[in-house]
């Protein structure tokens, strides 16, 4: 029985859901359409049927250094995810399996870091990074992204670890295994789906990050989201290229998001809703 009563899909709800779905994907489809149009076609929204051109994609890879942006994004995202999963995963196990004083307070302190406005951290980090001479490097972004990836990993992985029965570990302890051996040999293999899902969410969040990337990089380490700055002043001139680079930016995240669809709600709520 459904608690809220009505369970049937009426024509009205079906139509409403169709409209919602179309509204949700339309901007993506529209950007795709513009990216496949030629220069003059982009300014005429009434053209729906045309022979697609890949000119815009060719241009962004040849003239707008799209490969460099892709490379920077990939390096930063992969390294920060790897480090965050390692450090955050350890901490998550600590929170999941041990009882200690003020445990929940510490866990919620970790969660509250997610609420920090990046705009407030980025000013001092900008000044500090320029003193250290690490502005516009991959390193500074990798470090900054740990600021939101580690709290996320701790909360996500904690919820996955807590689902693994304690009895499994106790059996291993009886056999003489140490806590760390148990963690590596028993817990981690069992938590692999969770680790993969968490990593993918870290990848999505880091890939989409904009504030740190905008302030802390200028040319050598700029990531894909910062390409919006290329098209601020002269909007209306190169809509095709603008859309092409937008598509290049969001396609990977959409792909990853579809892979973790099953864990989507859990990921969006830091493991709060399963």
């Amino acid at each position, binding site marked *: 029985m*459904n*608690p*809220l009563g*009505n*369970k*049937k*899909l009426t024509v009205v*709800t*079906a139509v409403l*859901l169709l409209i*919602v*779905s179309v509204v949700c994907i339309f*901007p*993506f489809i*529209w950007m795709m359409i513009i990216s496949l149009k030629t220069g003059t076609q982009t*300014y005429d*929204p009434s053209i729906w049927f045309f022979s697609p051109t890949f000119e815009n994609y060719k241009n962004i890879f040849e003239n707008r250094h799209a490969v460099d942006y892709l490379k920077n994004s990939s390096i930063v995202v992969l390294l920060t995810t790897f480090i965050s999963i390692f*450090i955050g995963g350890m*901490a998550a196990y*600590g929170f999941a399996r041990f009882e*200690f004083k003020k445990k*929940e307070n*510490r866990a919620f302190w*970790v969660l*509250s*870091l997610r*609420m*920090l*406005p990046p*705009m*407030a*951290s980025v*000013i001092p*980090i900008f000044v*500090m990074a320029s003193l250290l001479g690490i502005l516009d490097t991959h390193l500074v972004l990798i470090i900054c992204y740990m*600021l939101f990836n*580690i*709290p996320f990993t701790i909360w996500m992985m904690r919820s996955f670890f807590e689902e693994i029965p304690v009895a499994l570990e106790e059996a291993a302890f009886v056999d003489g295994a140490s*806590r760390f051996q148990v963690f590596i040999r028993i817990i981690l293999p069992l938590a692999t789906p969770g680790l993969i899902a968490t990593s993918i969410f870290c990848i*999505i969040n880091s*890939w*989409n990050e*904009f*504030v740190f990337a*905008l302030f802390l990089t200028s040319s050598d380490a700029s990531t894909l989201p*910062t390409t*919006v700055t290329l*098209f601020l002043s002269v909007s*209306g001139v190169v809509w095709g290229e603008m859309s092409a680079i937008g598509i290049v930016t*969001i396609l990977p*995240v*959409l792909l990853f*998001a579809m892979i973790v*669809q099953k864990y*989507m*709600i859990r990921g*969006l*709520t830091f493991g*709060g*809703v399963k």
Partner: protein
Amino acid sequence: MIRSYFEKRPHLIYIMPAIIILGALTIIPTIFLYGLSVTNYELGYPTFDFVGLENYIRLFSGKDAEFWYSVGISLGFMLLATVTQLALGFWLAVLLDREFKLKFLVFACMIVPVAMTPSITGQVWKLMMNAEYGVLNYFLQFFGGKVVWLSGENAFWSTLLVDIWQNTPFVALIIYAGMRSLPTDPYEAAAIDGANKLQIFRNITLPLLWPMILLAVIFRAIDSLKMFDIPYSLTQGGPGSSTEFLSLHIYRLGFAGTGWIGRSAAVSVVLLILTTVISMILIRLYRKGVENKG
């Protein structure tokens, strides 16, 4: 001695690396931020002076109208965005809460806004909202309408619209998950007692969904308060300063054009305190709800 300290607290080995890194990454910059906010440091100038609370006095003496305007629209945006997205998300969750074959497709569509890079979202909506060549006005023309979406009057509402597009599916997914996990017993008991629909909703559904709703409110309220990506690529804070939300105000003061790091640090401190207070209140409410339940 150190050894026995760690043996008594085995959890420390696991959680210390993360706590130390997170602590260093938040406490040091925060102290630095407070430090910067009492200087007149400017980008490109090697020397600076301590000016005490001058930056703060300027903000709170009432002379800085731009600052108060930013505070106003940021708080207004936070309220409007959270309330609208909660209402729409709830409605969408009710629509979804039934069995049908193509549900997975609807979910796949709803995930597009959730996962889309926010700065790119702003950019594609800028194309769609273009007054002359944008597709929104192309559709509206069939109904004989035309809206200058990004004019001084409309830009705030257009930004709100884009934020609603991007984040309503997120709220809907959370509340939907909550509805799916509702227990059936209380409803059966209520049916036996002859409760009406409104009573059931008010006394059973709402309290059971409360943690989910709060969770959605926490994320949406805080994220819309500190929002930067969408207005940056959609309006650049303009036209004029009509959509200069707090984050954009900080950006303009400190980086675009003027380079007054000291003054923008003071505004950042205000934003930091604002988000901290609001998130503390909401997280406390959430913890109360969760801990009472379990």
